[in-house]
């Protein structure tokens, strides 16, 4: 049995098997750490009816914007869709896209739980708010909590700074954000990196995402929408 390399030559190849109806997580926050090349590849690929998880919903045509513009997304789980997410907001107002609005830390925690084999947890966040609607409430140690379920996806699209050929990852400054936790929570994690280095050349103490969580790698010049 020969082991397949995780390294893909092009963005189009790395996304080639994404089917209609897939669920996909997208890293990125505040303009940093978005897998914009992978997103562009997915836009070209044209898979539709996607269920996505992302902190926000794009900014104009940038970041997730192009996927909304192309009407590839049916449902989104987000913490802060954002006023700049023009295509999303239009479709949301017309009832053409479904939104699950989630507190940001709970969005992280639900993904982490999925990656950690934890199906549900009690949380103090959102108690007594719209977020609690339809959720089980329970008083634990005298405080009100609601039950939150873990959330996974078929794919995570993430952006890292550097990878080795096995898929060990390091990130750059605030561009780390959602990327590591999403890598743990998806069946298949695709990463775009700016640079690929020899196996063994990343400091084992400083690797942020061990390769066990990474399945496909493409090296490509970073794209940023400010």
């Amino acid at each position: 049995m020969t082991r397949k390399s995780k390294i893909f030559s092009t963005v189009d190849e790395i996304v080639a098997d994404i089917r209609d109806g897939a669920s996909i997580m997208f890293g990125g926050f505040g303009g940093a750490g978005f897998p914009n090349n992978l997103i562009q590849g997915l836009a070209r690929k044209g898979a539709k009816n996607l269920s996505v998880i992302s902190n926000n919903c794009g900014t104009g045509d940038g970041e997730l914007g192009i996927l909304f513009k192309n009407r590839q997304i049916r449902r989104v789980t987000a913490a802060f869709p954002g006023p700049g997410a023009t295509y999303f907001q239009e479709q949301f107002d017309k009832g053409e896209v479904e939104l699950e609005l989630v507190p940001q830390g709970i969005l992280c925690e639900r993904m982490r739980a999925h990656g950690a084999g934890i199906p549900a947890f009690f949380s103090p966040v959102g108690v007594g708010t719209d977020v609690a609607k339809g959720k089980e409430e329970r008083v634990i140690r005298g405080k009100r909590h609601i039950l939150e379920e873990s959330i996974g996806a078929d794919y995570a699209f993430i952006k890292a700074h550097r990878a080795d050929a096995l898929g060990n990852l390091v990130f750059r400054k605030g561009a780390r954000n959602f990327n590591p936790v999403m890598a743990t929570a998806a069946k298949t994690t695709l990463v775009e990196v700016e640079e690929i280095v020899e196996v063994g050349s990343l400091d084992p103490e400083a690797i942020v995402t061990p390769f066990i969580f990474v399945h496909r790698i493409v090296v490509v010049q970073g794209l940023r929408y400010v």
Partner: protein
Amino acid sequence: MSKPRLTREQIAQRAALELPDGACVNLGWGIPNLTAAYVPKGITIYFHSENGILGMGPRAKKGEEDFDLVDAMKVPVTLIPGASFFAQEAAHVMTRGGHLDVCMLGGLQVSEKGDLANWRVPGAKGAGGIGGAMDIAVGARRLIVTMEHTSKDGARKIVKRCDYPLTAVECVDTIVTDLAVIDVTPDGLQLREVAPGFTPEEVQALTEPKLHYSGKVPEMLASAR
């Protein structure tokens, strides 16, 4: 009632005096975010950002921006010595887990019991957005809300019961407005300071629940002008 109230900058300046030396602090959108510029000299505050930074310094200078080093408002910032990077999930271990000393959020309404509504105006267009506010409100060791005392159309924002969608219940410790500093206590709202030129009675008139105070209420600190 045309007496000048504090400006947004002055609210931020007054709020900054609530920060103890060495504190780890998260600032939300709006007036809270202005506070960073008014940290009193001689103390160090370690600003926290939800994207995984502890120890943010001032905004980056023009031409020196690194767009991988941004705060939660997407503004390029700098680091101070001792800063660290971590994942968003770890950033929220800090918010929700009760590790941040002080957090400041803007407010649309604050109730007598310290309930906060700050993320959505009822009937507003669009999807709205929660962001990190709910995790922060629930977990902050001390939550300060900075806001104008009344809305643009003159409605009272400190109310008996919020009718806007809530961010969190019983979470606010202190309210700093353009008219007053008010502490939320188990015995109700305590009026700690009033804006220069205003009387407690005038502030009470613009506040729905009862304000408790005794004797002369000090003016909001002069350094805040």
